[in-house]
C-alpha cells in the first residue's frame, strides 16, 4: 500500500491493519497523524512494516496503543529527506499472558534542522515479552538535528521479559541528541500506601500502570481514538 500526502495537506490515518507493508510519502509541509490502535477486532500478529519518507517541513506523528493485550510486530522506518522535517513517535504497550509485542524503529536524519522525538512505554506481566529497538542515525549533512529517544518499561512479574535497545549513531557535529531506556518494577512503597488507604492490591497495581503509561497517552492528540480501551475515564 502506497500513500502520498500532498503539499501542506493534513491527513489523519487510522490503521485498519489489513496491509502488511505500507509506504508513505509526505510532500513539503504535509502533516500526518497516524493512529495505530490495537483492539480485539483488528488484531494482526504477523510482522508488518511502515516506511515513511518526509520532505521539507513535513510532520509525521505516529500513535501506537496496544494496551488490551495481544501480540504485534511492527517495523517503522522514517527518512528525513527535506530540511526541517519532524517526527513524533508515541507508543504504549500493556501486555500479559504470552503476548509478544515488538517495535523496531529506524530514523534516518539526512537533512538539516530536522527533529525526532520517540517515547515508548511497555508494561509487562505474566510471561509477556516486549521488544523495543530504536536506531536513530544522524548523517554527516544533518546538522542542527534535535532528537530524543526514550523507552521506559515496567515489569510486574518474574517471568516477563523486556528487550530494549535504543541506538544513536551521529556523524554530524552540531546536533542535540539523547537516548535511553529503563526497566523497573512497580513501586512497592506506593502499593503499600494505597493498600493502607483501602485500595485493593489489584486495583492499586492497575492505577500505577495507568499512571506509568499516561505520559504517552497524554501526547496523543485525539483521546477518543483510544478512550474505549481504558477501564477508567481519561
Amino acid at each position, binding site marked *: 500500500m502506497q500513500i502520498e500526502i500532498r503539499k501542506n495537506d493534513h491527513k489523519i490515518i487510522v490503521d485498519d491493519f489489513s496491509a502488511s507493508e505500507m509506504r508513505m510519502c509526505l510532500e513539503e509541509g504535509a502533516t500526518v497523524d497516524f493512529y495505530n490502535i490495537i483492539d480485539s477486532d483488528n488484531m494482526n500478529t504477523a510482522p508488518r512494516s511502515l516506511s515513511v519518507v518526509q520532505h521539507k517541513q513535513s510532520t509525521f506523528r505516529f500513535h501506537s496503543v496496544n494496551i488490551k493485550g495481544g501480540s504485534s510486530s511492527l517495523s517503522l522506518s522514517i527518512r528525513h529527506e527535506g530540511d526541517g522535517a519532524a517526527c513524533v513517535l508515541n507508543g504504549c504497550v500493556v501486555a500479559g499472558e504470552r503476548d509478544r509485542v515488538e517495535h523496531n524503529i529506524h530514523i534516518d536524519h539526512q537533512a538539516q534542522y530536522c527533529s525526532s522525538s520517540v517515547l515508548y512505554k511497555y508494561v509487562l506481566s505474566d510471561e509477556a515479552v516486549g521488544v523495543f529497538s530504536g536506531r536513530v542515525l544522524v548523517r554527516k549533512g544533518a546538522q542542527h538535528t534535535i532528537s530524543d529517544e526514550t523507552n521506559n518499561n515496567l515489569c510486574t512479574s518474574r517471568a516477563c521479559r523486556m528487550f530494549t535497545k535504543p541506538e544513536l549513531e551521529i556523524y554530524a557535529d552540531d546536533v542535540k541528541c539523547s537516548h535511553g531506556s529503563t526497566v523497573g518494577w512497580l513501586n512497592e512503597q506506593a502499593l*503499600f500506601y494505597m493498600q493502607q488507604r*483501602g485500595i485493593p492490591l489489584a*486495583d492499586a497495581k492497575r492505577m500505577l500502570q495507568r499512571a506509568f503509561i499516561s505520559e504517552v497517552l497524554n501526547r496523543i492528540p485525539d483521546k477518543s481514538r483510544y478512550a474505549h480501551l481504558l477501564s477508567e475515564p481519561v
Partner: protein
Amino acid sequence: MLEIKNLHASVDGKEILRGIDLRIGDGEMHALMGPNGSGKSTLSAVLTGNPMYEVTEGSITFNGKDLLSMKPEDRAHEGLFLSFQYPVEIPGVSMTNFMRAALNGKRRYHGEKDLTAAEFIRLMKEKRTLLQLDNKLANRSVNEGFSGGEKKRNEIFQMAMLEPKLSILDETDSGLDVDAMKIVADGVNSLKRADTSCIIITHYQRLLEYLQPEIVHILYKGRIVCTGGMELSRRIEAEGFDWVRNAD
C-alpha cells in the same frame, strides 16, 4: 479496640520488636514516645500489614478480629489508618482518583454502593475545608511536589475522608509550622468519637498538649518500658531519654 500480646517482629532477620503488650480501649488516645530507632514506626508498619516486616511471635486483635491474618487493605476497611511518617509520592495518580478508589474500596468491602460523583465531591470539599487544604493540592498527583507540611496535612485530610476507628499518627507533627499544627490538632480532635481511638507517635510535647492523650507509653529497644500519663511526656521534654536508658 486493640489488643497486642507479646508481639515480636523482625526485618531482614533482625529483631526490632521484642515483646510488645498494649491494650487500647474505645475512645482512648495513647501517646507513643521513645528514642530514634526504638521501633515506633515498625510497630505501625506491623499493625498495618507492611509486607517488609515479619511477625515472629504474638497476636493482635482488632475489634475482636485477628488482625495479622488480614490483608493490608482489609485492615484499612475494618477501620485502621496510618498517617505515615514519610508519606509516599505517587506521580500520575491524582488525589481525586486515589481518594475515590480508597473510599469505594471500603464501601464495597462493607457491601455498600459506590459514592456518586456529587456525593464524593461534596465530601472532598467538606474535609478539605476542615484541614484548610488548597483545592490545587487536591487536583495534583498524590503527594507529588507537596511540601513536608502539606504532606502531613494531606495525611489528616485522608483520615478525615476515611473516618477510621483507630488512627496511628506517626510523627504527623514533625515538619508542621505552628499554625498548621493547630489545624491538624483541631482536625484530629473534631474527628474524635466515643468509639474511635488514636495512637499518637511523637517526639514533642506541643501536639500532645492540644490532644491531651490519657495514656503515654515509652518504647525502648522494641519494648514498652514505661506507661503513665502526660507527666511522662513532660519529663521527656525536660530531661530527654537518659533516665529511661539508665533504668534499662
